[in-house]
């Protein structure tokens, strides 16, 4: 009994001694986490994050104010960038056409044909080209359709169209990537920059003055620029596109925003470049389309635009007359 009382007394004394400390520790006013303090301490790109009881880890982000910044960037800057890239390039090309006109073959058609691109090369090119056009149009629709197409066709039709566009965009991305690899493998050897390219660039490729034809191999410096832009730009589009296709693999909203911005910016730049490429390969230059059409170009066109390549092809095929010209020149 005495023992119990002494114990009790000891316990009471202990409780009295510790009580103020314990009270201070559970005082909710003194130590509560404050929303305003957390928000003020946030750096750009940071979020207010806690613990969540559901398996979806991304749900643990409570507040991510960065979403609003991306919304402004996407619906302002990126839309204008896309408009300027497409409309601006078309206007520039129209201006170029008015000033320079169609670039003719100075010495006229010779009637003799040289094989420039074989069937595999043309297949790779047109696979890349056709998928790119669908991807570009459906992508452009995603960023500009709401302000351009929707008021014309109405919400229901636009929704259906864009849903199909999204399906096309998601599926055609894969043949685009396959064609990108194929084009890289086929043409990389012809696209290594060399000394002759400097001369071509110095003369502006002969684009701006009649009768000027700087020498070039199979691909001139302008075509090499297109090639490397397509390869690097296409790789960037593929990488960011895959990340956007599988959002679960990436993680946070900040990552998705980052990939979407790169995807949109590179797409705008590539659309502008490809518009110029389509122009010069069709209405812009006489005889140019045959290279990718039938694969055979007129000898005079080839001599004017790819003089060194013609020499290579002729030089190799001359001793072996009858076997036909090869599409791949010796380097």
């Amino acid at each position, binding site marked *: 009994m005495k023992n119990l009382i002494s114990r009790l007394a000891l316990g009471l004394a202990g409780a009295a001694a510790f009580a103020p400390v314990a009270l201070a520790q559970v005082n909710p006013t003194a*130590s509560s986490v404050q*929303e*305003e303090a957390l928000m003020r301490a946030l750096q750009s790109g940071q979020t207010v994050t*806690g613990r969540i009881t559901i398996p979806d880890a991304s749900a643990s982000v409570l507040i991510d104010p960065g979403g609003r910044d991306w919304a402004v960037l996407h619906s302002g800057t990126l839309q204008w960038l896309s408009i300027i890239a497409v409309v601006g390039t078309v206007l520039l090309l129209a201006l170029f056409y008015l000033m320079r006109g169609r670039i003719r073959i100075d010495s006229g058609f010779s009637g003799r044909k040289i094989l420039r691109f074989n069937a595999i090369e043309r297949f790779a090119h047109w696979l890349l080209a056709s998928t790119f056009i669908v991807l570009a149009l459906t992508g452009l629709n995603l960023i500009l359709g709401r302000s351009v197409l929707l008021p014309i066709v109405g919400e229901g039709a636009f929704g259906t169209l864009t849903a199909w566009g999204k399906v096309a965009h998601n599926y055609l991305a894969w043949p685009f990537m396959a064609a990108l690899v194929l084009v890289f493998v086929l043409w990389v050897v012809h696209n290594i920059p060399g000394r002759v390219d400097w001369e071509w660039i110095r003369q502006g490729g002969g684009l701006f003055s009649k009768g000027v034809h700087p020498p070039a191999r199979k691909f001139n410096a302008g075509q090499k620029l297109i090639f490397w832009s397509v390869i690097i730009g296409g790789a960037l589009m593929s990488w960011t596109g895959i990340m956007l*296709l599988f959002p679960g693999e990436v993680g946070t909203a900040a990552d998705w925003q980052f990939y979407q911005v790169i995807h949109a910016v590179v797409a705008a730049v590539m659309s502008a470049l490809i518009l110029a490429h389509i122009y010069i390969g069709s209405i812009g230059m006489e005889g140019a389309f045959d290279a990718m059409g039938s694969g055979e170009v007129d000898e005079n066109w080839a001599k004017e635009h790819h003089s060194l390549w013609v020499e290579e092809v002729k030089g190799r095929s001359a001793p072996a007359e009858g076997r036909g010209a090869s599409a791949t020149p010796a380097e």
Partner: protein
Amino acid sequence: MARMKFLCDADRCIECQACVTACKNEHEVPWGINRRRVVTINDGLPGERSVSMACMHCTDAPCATVCPVNCFYTTDDAVVLHNKDTCIGCGYCSYACPFGAPQFPQTANFGTRGKMDKCTYCSGGPEPDLSAAEYQKYGANRLAEGKLPLCAEMCSTKALLAGDGDIIAEIYRERVVTRGYGSGAWGWRTAYGDTIAV
């Protein structure tokens, strides 16, 4: 018209998850879709707080800004709703949302995204009020029945408040003044551009 808002008084929230359960049950929300969730800040530390979060029905909603098909609209009660017939499941709204509200069913190709689903403030969608089609796509329409969102209505500690923004802000302000502390109106500055001054 009222300007409907949510306000979670984190000093009252006991993280019982009843709001989450009520939401799932009321709208028969499928597996993997979480229209509402409870996040605990500073878990296990002194002064930890739990916040029940769903779509905050933002002023100048960023999801509506970025939607490529413009499927969002704001009702007379300032509730942000969307049309699932127009939605293409691109996921842009979830990139823009500061509160992680947009949810995507895992039915589509390439991973994850079917048509977006999110908190409707218990007010359905563009289908006729209280129709079967509305219930199937968006869940119950309690506002059309003159009731407030169920998550807030059944909150056991009355931590989660729903209703006109001015009224619930006043309730919260009174609470903070009376008890002498408050961890803040979570998400208000981000959603509505201003917070509650006490």
